[in-house]
């Protein structure tokens, strides 16, 4: 089992993106998915950083794939999606409709926002050329085990959401803009003010969700650390870590220690809590509980 870094969910500046991928080059991760995952309006601000980031990561021996958007609706978004398949890199689809642009026989990856809930869908994707699938975060361990087995038989590497705020929903409406009493077309890029997303809490002040433009994430950081041994035994190929602002290199190192030296789950959790004070960790989904159920 190794580590994959997912696309950056949030609206970071070009400088932040550059520094992030330079940092990643020297970390013990095997592969990185790059691209605008949430809102096409953000892309012009940082897409010029992608070639240099890809080059630096490949020079450091990492596999790199390009991500599509999670919800593709506009014409320019469809053109941009088609353009991704023209590169030499594998494309990770985040919206099933992207397959309409897949060159015949081209291999591709599948991200966690595509609904792969069962063997039938996994096998169908494998027959289309899928080589790597990150399962939806809401799946329980029992399903993960079945899908890992199906993946082995179909020659598909199966990943599980390993760390970070989980993508829970995507909408045609921008909630960041709505929080500033604006509509999406006049958003003035307010999501840039919240580089780890914006907190939504209940009327009792209980942290609940995270708004990130058109995307809604969990407030809790979902972590597969407590299940690492079970996932390895199931034959899961990689844990996916989702980029966040603070201490990401330290986060990677903790997961690397879990995988390489079998760092026990309680130690891994206390290390994570030490470097990310105040962070709520949860992994109810794998336990077939409410996803928000906190880690012990």
């Amino acid at each position: 089992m190794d580590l994959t870094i997912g696309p950056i969910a949030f609206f970071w500046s070009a400088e932040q993106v550059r520094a992030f991928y330079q940092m990643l080059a020297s970390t013990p991760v095997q592969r990185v998915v790059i691209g605008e995952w949430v809102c096409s309006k953000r892309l012009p601000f940082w897409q010029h950083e992608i070639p240099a980031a890809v080059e630096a990561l490949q020079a450091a021996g990492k596999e790199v794939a390009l991500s599509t958007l999670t919800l593709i609706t506009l014409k320019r978004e469809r053109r941009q999606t088609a353009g991704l398949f023209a590169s030499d890199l594998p494309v990770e689809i985040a919206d099933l409709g992207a397959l309409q642009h897949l060159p015949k026989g081209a291999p591709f990856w599948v991200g966690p926002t595509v609904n792969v809930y069962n063997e039938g869908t996994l096998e169908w994707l494998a027959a289309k050329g899928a080589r790597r699938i990150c399962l939806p975060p809401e799946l329980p361990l029992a399903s993960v085990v079945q899908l890992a087995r199906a993946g082995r038989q179909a020659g598909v590497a199966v990943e599980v959401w390993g760390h970070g705020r989980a993508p829970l929903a995507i909408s045609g409406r921008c909630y960041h803009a709505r929080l500033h009493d604006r509509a999406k077309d006049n958003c003035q890029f307010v999501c840039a003010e919240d580089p780890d997303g914006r907190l939504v809490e209940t009327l009792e002040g209980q942290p609940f969700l995270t708004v990130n433009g058109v995307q809604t994430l969990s407030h809790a950081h979902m972590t597969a650390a407590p299940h690492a041994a079970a996932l390895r035994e199931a034959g899961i190929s990689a844990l996916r870590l989702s980029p966040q602002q603070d201490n990401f290199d330290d986060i990677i190192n903790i997961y690397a220690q879990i995988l390489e030296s079998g760092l026990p789950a309680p130690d891994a959790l206390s290390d994570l809590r030490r470097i990310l004070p105040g962070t709520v960790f949860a992994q109810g989904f794998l336990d077939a509980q409410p996803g928000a159920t906190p880690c012990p």
Partner: protein
Amino acid sequence: MMELVCPAGTPAALRAAVDAGAHTVYCGFADETNARNFPGLNFSREEMAQGIAYAHARGAKVLIAINTFPRAGDQALWHRAVSDAAGLDADAVILADPGLIAHAAQTHPHLRLHLSVQAAAANPDAINFHARTFGIRRVVLPRVLSVEEITAINREIDIETEVFVFGGLCVMAEGRCSLSSYATGLSPNMNGVCSPASHVAYADTGGNHEARLGEFLIHRTPKGMPVPYPTLCKGCFTSPGDGSSQTGHIFEDPVSLDATRLIPALQKAGVTALKIEGRQRSRAYVAQVVRAFRAAVEAADQGAPMPEGLLARLTEGQAATTGAYAKTWR
């Protein structure tokens, strides 16, 4: 005339919808295979056979929704639902899961396939992909699109489109939402339920009514005011922020969809069928809504204005919205 596609959660509602003028009724089997898997709802195989016979005898069609995502290791339940639907002479099945669609297309090549809104096919590429790959004949469009976007989609695709015009409103792309399972462990995709009643708790505290979903407070209203059902995305929350702190319905107000006045625009946009949400609704509600909408599609067909105040009684006390259709989301 645009086709009117109406919900039926029970055999009685099916008969009521047909009698009230539904061109088509959609329903599901009484298990996890459909996205309205509520206690006491839906059809046994025998009830489905009788319902289909009743509809067909009166010139109406029946569509069977098998639109949850099969559970790994348990696909046989969903496969059986598809083969039973074909055997019962359903006019089409409404599916969302690619693996299940592939299975249906292969094992029942003559069964008409509709793409469920749960498949979230939101652009011509996604729709054409499903049409080309599986022979899908109709797509139910997600409720995240404007009328302009629907018009543009219809220009680029060859299959029929069906859109929701009345009833519950999802503000998230359907079939791609795990908010419910984050709070309760049960989701539309896996269990066919959203914000399920089994996880709802009401309480009176300190002069307020409170409604919770799982451990999360979703609504709090002063005593004497009705407390809405705690559907997660319609809840009242706070988002703290420097100078932009907001308390309110961060995602959507507790509203339902009413696109009645957009029916002529939707017809012009090339939409084939109008869909009414509400398989969980009573027979009386279904009959009333179907009658009103039948009058509306007949008026649209003749280029007459939409009958005013058609559904005022049904939406009374509850705000209605035209959702994404009127482009206010952009």
